[in-house]
């Protein structure tokens, strides 16, 4: 038994590529070497596997060929294909086959290592020389060792700037030799060191989740602390945090302090350099910020006429007008209308051009600086929420109304211009907008009248409810066909119908609806436009008409179901006693109308034909 080391040395790999390699490596090693990958060690400059207790020979193999009874026809070809004679074939369990004795691991390693290199696949890969191999970044060395025997390559390499080639005397010493050469090969250990270092400097945060990337940005961990001039604290905090995190991969420590992870260098020099870079960025942001603030959110908002929302959809000033109108229709008050007027103002600001992810937030900060009430500012801040499937909803009422109005407008305008999402293409983010609108209604409790949505938009938006409401989709589809007046009402109805599905009243209403619909639904074009009571000749049909007149569709689902259930016995009698398809066309048309009225009255609760029974 031996220890095996395989190392692929690269130019600096992106963090994403490191993770992809670490994920794929165990299966690849198993496939190519027939062993379980012991330890997977990935840094930006190397992808390595260490396996202890490896057999020094690959296992014997038996390659299955044709069944014995076909030997005459097939044996020669099969043997030839595998470079042996027919006499060499060995039969097992009725099949001919070729015996492939295991080979020394050292002999197969070079080709297997090559297969591993070629077998790794990255979401972004490149060519770099005439070999044509594709990899995330150029491969510059490979090393394979069995115990102290070097099978492929010569040496490993230590830290890029503090150590050169590293001789590994024995595969089992790989990790310690690299550590001595300034490289921590184990990503988990680097993560642990980073966390320990961050904890030691203070209460750090990582809202943009850069830690995962930082683990793969260094081979050796030094956590350093830096500060910046307090005058930059005048900037919106999120601007400062974004400058630190997305540009520099720093960790905010609160106030004017930050932490970062270096890969080496003299700590004081490196700290001073990084502080200078961050201050430069913040200084640049301050220039932009001060120019914006001198103008103020009102003047910025006045410039929206010059910015196109998107082609055919007018300017952002036009959008603002439409959103204000929708805010009114959604019951928004003065604060919401004011927020709507200013909401897109930051799109005219320079700072949003630099920090596009902070749209809305920057506008809110500018509104605060202009002295607007907090309700207005908070609504501006929250207008794009929820911005992801599980993302938070606006917390303020004004924010909910503004967010819903913004999404309604985007959906309405986009659909009117024919920009419907197709397949995975959704350049205008309409799915997200529709899901957001549904969540504002369902989870946020906002009343979104369905009449505010043009038919196509309503269809598209309500289809999103099917994935959001936790009942079988048929109940949502049934509820979508109901007379529910608002988006949240559709969801509540779907839930209520599902909760009632096993009650006798539900059963009664369902049956009445179903029978009426089955019989009359197909003949709807023959039905009379209106019920003519004078044509109701039979007691049974008069009873249905009377019962129907007293059915109330107001109130909660339970009440409506109870009321609707009173139709069940009279309907049963009707179907027993009355022949709907009477010879007299007028009577027939009138009876069809009666059934359709039953269906449509009960149908105010939903389209029961959607629900499987």
């Amino acid at each position, binding site marked *: 038994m031996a220890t095996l080391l395989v190392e692929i040395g690269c130019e600096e790999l992106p963090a994403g590529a490191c993770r992809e390699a670490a994920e794929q490596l165990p299966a690849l090693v198993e496939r190519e070497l027939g062993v379980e990958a012991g330890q997977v060690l990935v840094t930006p400059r190397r992808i390595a596997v260490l396996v202890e207790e490896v057999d020094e020979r690959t296992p014997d193999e038996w390659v299955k060929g044709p069944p014995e009874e076909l030997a005459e026809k097939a044996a020669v070809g099969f043997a030839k294909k595998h470079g042996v004679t027919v006499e060499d074939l060995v039969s097992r369990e009725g099949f001919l086959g070729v015996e492939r004795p295991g080979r020394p691991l050292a002999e197969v390693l070079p080709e297997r290592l090559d297969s591993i290199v070629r077998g790794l696949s990255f979401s972004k890969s*490149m060519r770099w*020389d005439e070999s044509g191999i594709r990899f995330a970044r*150029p491969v510059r060395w490979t090393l394979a060792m069995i115990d102290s025997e070097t099978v492929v390559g010569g040496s490993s390499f230590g830290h890029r700037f503090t150590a050169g080639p590293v001789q590994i005397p024995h595969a089992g010493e790989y990790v310690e030799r690299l550590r001595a050469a300034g490289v921590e090969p184990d990503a988990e250990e680097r993560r642990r060191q980073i966390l320990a270092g961050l904890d030691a400097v203070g209460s750090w945060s990582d809202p943009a989740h850069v830690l995962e990337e930082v683990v793969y940005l260094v081979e050796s961990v030094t956590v350093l602390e830096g500060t910046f001039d307090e005058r930059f604290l005048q900037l919106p905090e999120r601007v400062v945090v974004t400058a630190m995190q997305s540009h520099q991969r720093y960790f905010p420590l609160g106030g004017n302090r930050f932490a970062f992870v270096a890969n080496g260098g003299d700590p004081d020099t490196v700290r001073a350099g990084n502080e*200078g*870079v961050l201050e430069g960025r913040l200084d640049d942001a301050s*220039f932009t910020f001060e120019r914006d603030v001198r103008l103020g959110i009102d003047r910025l908002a006045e410039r929206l006429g010059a910015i196109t929302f998107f082609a055919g959809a007018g300017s952002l000033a036009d959008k603002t007008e439409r959103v204000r109108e929708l805010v009114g229709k959604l019951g928004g008050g003065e604060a919401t209308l004011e927020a709507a007027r200013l909401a897109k103002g930051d799109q005219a600001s320079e700072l949003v051009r630099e920090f596009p992810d902070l749209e809305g937030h920057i506008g809110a900060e500018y509104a605060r600086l202009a002295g607007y009430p907090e309700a207005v500012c908070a609504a501006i801040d929250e207008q794009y929420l929820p911005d992801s499937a599980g993302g938070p909803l606006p917390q303020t009422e004004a924010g909910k109304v503004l967010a819903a109005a913004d999404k309604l407008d985007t959906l309405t305008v986009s659909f009117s211009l024919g920009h419907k999402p197709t397949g995975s293409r959704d350049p205008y983010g309409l799915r997200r907008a529709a899901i957001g609108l549904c969540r504002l209604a369902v989870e946020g409790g906002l009343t979104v009248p369905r009449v505010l949505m043009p038919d196509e938009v309503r269809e598209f938006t309500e289809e999103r409810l099917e994935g959001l409401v936790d009942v079988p989709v048929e109940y949502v589809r049934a509820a979508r066909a109901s007379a529910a007046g608002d988006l949240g009402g559709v969801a509540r109805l779907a839930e209520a119908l599902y909760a009632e599905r096993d009650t006798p009243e539900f059963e009664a209403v369902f049956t009445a609806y179903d029978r009426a619909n089955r019989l009359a639904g197909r003949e709807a074009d023959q039905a009379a436009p209106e019920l003519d009571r004078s044509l109701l000749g039979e007691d049974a049909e008069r009873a249905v008409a009377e019962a129907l007149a007293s059915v109330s569709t107001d109130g909660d689902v339970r009440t409506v179901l109870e009321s609707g259930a009173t139709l069940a016995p009279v309907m049963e009698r009707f179907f027993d006693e009355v022949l709907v398809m009477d010879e007299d066309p007028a009577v027939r048309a009138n009876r069809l109308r009666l059934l359709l009225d039953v269906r449509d009255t009960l149908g105010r609760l939903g389209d029961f034909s959607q629900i499987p029974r």
Partner: protein
Amino acid sequence: MIRALEGYWADEGCVLMQPYHTELAAGTMNPATFLRCLGPDPWKTAYVEPSIRPQDGRYGENPYRFQQFFQFQVILKPAPEDVLDRYFASLEVLGIDLQRHDIRLVEDDWEQPTLGAWGLGWEVWCDGMEITQWTYFQQLGGFDVELVPAEMTYGLERLAMFLQGKRTAFELEWVPGVTWGEVYRESERQWSAYNFELAPVEVLTARFGEHEEECRLLLERGLPLPAYDQVLKCSHTFNLLDARGAISATERATYIRRVRALARDVAKRYLEANGDAAG
């Protein structure tokens, strides 16, 4: 600094070129890079390129934003195996002690849609400051490169700020007693006024079409080199129109497509004349 880089890369066998004679947004667009990196012939070059980006001007008020700055561009085609070591050695020539500083290669993939070009690479950080854009080209003008070139674009102002310990480009010492600000600040102010306020939109719009047409004519005559200049003029005209705020988001995509189509046709012609047109 420029002399040090030129000396180093000349010793590495690079042809030292001079800045190109029409406005470029980046040294990559210089035909010494864009065209020479196509085709099967090896090529090594190094040159300074003034990078003209009308949208980035700030009237000389913001010491971090300019409509013109300088790049030092190096191309090694094909990229030698130790290309990174050679690059790091150039930093040492500039006086950067690689052991005292924290030098890092941070993923930064490059894409230039107007040229149908992309590559993978890094931004090189020195103590957190980006001092070089580093790219292995993969496609130019929509064509796969035959020999993969390494492109190193040093940001000269940033490097100088770093080396001189200055916080802004304005304070940089150009020669003893003369600062960068004294040389370029007024020009920033005047060019920003032109780029943002005065550049004539209608004239430029027409000019874009003229350059486009001239490019096509030159291609028909089998002259990809002068045709490429017309691509560059189209690109700069587009940037000016953009700075003037005269281009909506959808028009933007159309303009980019038009320039890309020209760049692709020029690349195709160039390849037909200079080796086989792969890809």
